[in-house]
């Protein structure tokens, strides 16, 4: 075997890992997939059933009586917290990238970017700690009651301001975790834009900000879309921080923006211990189905982002 084949064979491990992972999760979750059907995604009733009764057989699967596995509340929690995070992260990320690329002197730029983009390096569980210890008391005592009182006329912002554990807190912390992904990529793309376009815009009388806003930003929109999708992927799968600040609600759809939620990723951690008490093992398999669904969603989201970013790289190379 020649060297090239050898590296190809060994290197395939990287690609094969993903395929094996999806396959094994699929095989393990298959009884749960058979039992749950589409109700898994459309119903809101995660219930391990009567743990003290004898297992019964439904659709060829052994389960506990009254067991149901519907994760609509997880899908809602995951999508809503990600939606809040991404809708805040895009404007903040774009603004910071513009200021870093165009408003900061080059000498200072690398230091300021480093400082801000290290937000991405801080481990998820440290965000969780920060959120749990200082952010939640701050938000629940000072910010949320004020928001509920004065901004309550806006739908979903009124009502009970809650305990601080919940949807908006998750959205805010997730925003900080994903903003650096957008800022770093976009700043790079803006800095690497050629001088000719800038000069052309300035020659037409555009101010510096107008140059950025009307000429450079449209040029890099594919990078922005690509990195935003990557950031979405990260927010969808964030586990520890969300676990510590979301309130871990079960079978509960949030009625306002302060309400406790659970996401697919955090639910896997918070529920495995109780799932293990199910003697039929169906609850653990249903959690595997949650993991499989999350894995497939992230593959879809990341695949889309990569395709877009590859295309932009080729495009900017003039290929």
């Amino acid at each position, binding site marked *: 075997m020649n060297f090239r084949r050898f590296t190809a064979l060994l290197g395939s491990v990287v690609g094969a*890992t993903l395929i094996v992972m999806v396959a094994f999760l699929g095989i393990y979750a298959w009884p749960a997939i058979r039992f749950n059907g589409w109700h898994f995604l459309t119903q809101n009733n995660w219930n391990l059933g009567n743990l003290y009764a004898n297992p019964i057989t439904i659709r060829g699967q052994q389960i506990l009586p009254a067991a149901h596995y519907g994760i609509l509340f997880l899908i809602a929690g995951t999508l809503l917290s990600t939606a809040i995070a991404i809708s805040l992260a895009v404007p903040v990320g*774009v603004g910071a990238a513009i200021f870093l690329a165009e408003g900061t002197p080059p000498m200072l730029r690398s230091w300021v970017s480093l400082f801000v983009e290290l*937000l991405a*390096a*801080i481990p998820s569980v*440290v965000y969780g700690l*920060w959120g749990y210890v200082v952010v939640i008391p701050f938000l629940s005592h000072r910010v949320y009651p004020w928001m509920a009182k004065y901004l309550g006329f806006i739908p979903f912002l009124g009502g009970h301001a809650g305990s601080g554990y919940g949807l908006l807190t998750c959205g805010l912390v997730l925003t900080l975790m994903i903003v650096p992904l957008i800022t770093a990529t976009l700043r790079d793309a803006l800095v690497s834009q050629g001088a000719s376009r800038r000069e052309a815009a300035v020659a037409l009388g555009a101010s510096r900000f107008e140059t*950025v806003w009307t000429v450079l930003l449209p040029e890099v929109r594919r990078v922005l879309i690509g990195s935003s999708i990557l950031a979405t992927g990260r927010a969808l799968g964030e*586990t520890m921080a969300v676990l510590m600040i979301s309130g871990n609600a079960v079978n509960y759809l949030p009625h306002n923006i302060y309400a406790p939620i659970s996401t697919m990723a955090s639910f896997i951690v918070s529920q495995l211990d109780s799932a293990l008490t199910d003697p039929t093992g169906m609850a653990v398999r249903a959690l595997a189905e949650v993991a499989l669904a999350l894995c497939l969603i992230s593959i879809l989201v990341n695949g889309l982002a990569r395709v877009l970013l590859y295309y932009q790289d080729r495009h900017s190379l003039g290929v």
Partner: protein
Amino acid sequence: MATTATEICAPDRRARRGSLLRRRLFDLVGWGSSALALLLLGGAMLWILGVVFLRGLSALSPTILTHVTEGYGGGLLNAIEGTAVLALGGVVLAAVPGLAAGIYLAEFDAGRLAPFIRFLADVLVGVPSIVIGYFGYVTLVVDLGWKFSVAAGSIALAIISLPYICRTTEMALRQVPRALRESAYALGAGDARVVLGICLPTALPGILTGILLAVAISVGETAPLLYTAGWSNYLWTGHLTNEPIGYLTYAIWAFITEPFSSAHALAYAAALLVTLFVLIISILSRTILEGWRRRSPWERPAL
């Protein structure tokens, strides 16, 4: 005086002054809000670092570094050791396939498998770590019967490290000048000798950076270890399977929710140690990566 395009298009002076004002305002709002966005991020970073460092430093003591955990107090020696064992184990497992994949992608770009490996590696980066942890749980811990163990935890971390090592290796090798390869081939060297004897040593600093980055990521991970490595109050006795092991990130998560100040001290100290380590490695590796980017901006990795 020559007539300018603006004068022809907008002869009304008042309208022009209005549009100029509008443009000034647009500029002001634009710069103002982008500066605000940057300040927001910087402020949040300072807040997080402030909490972690202030509380961590006041919690840190020699006892914490030299004793094992006892109930909700004691020290973190077992967790420090466990984090080191798991992270190194993961990187050792991931190094060979990761390097091989990186070499294949950089040197044999035209290979039929190259686009698939690159795409799958890039997608693997984005797979949530809890999914990798749960995969480890159902396959290694349950099906193979390894129980919570160093082996299961290390393999979970290895899966997370793989794509990072692969992509940084590829990038480091792409920085090696083409002429170097061509001269080696011209002297009659084969593929293996050119890559292993010439390119790999030249690219070594970059490859080591990637591996270091993978260690930093492994040290900061929690979710993939919760149900593969478990937790233990004792020092590791050297068994690869059937023996759970402690790690720092678990101490942060588990001890901060306990109602004891000794437990909180452990959590803050663990957070300080993890954050400090991760930040130092990230700054180091970023400085090196930044250097390359400046040299060849078109060969950016999609990391």
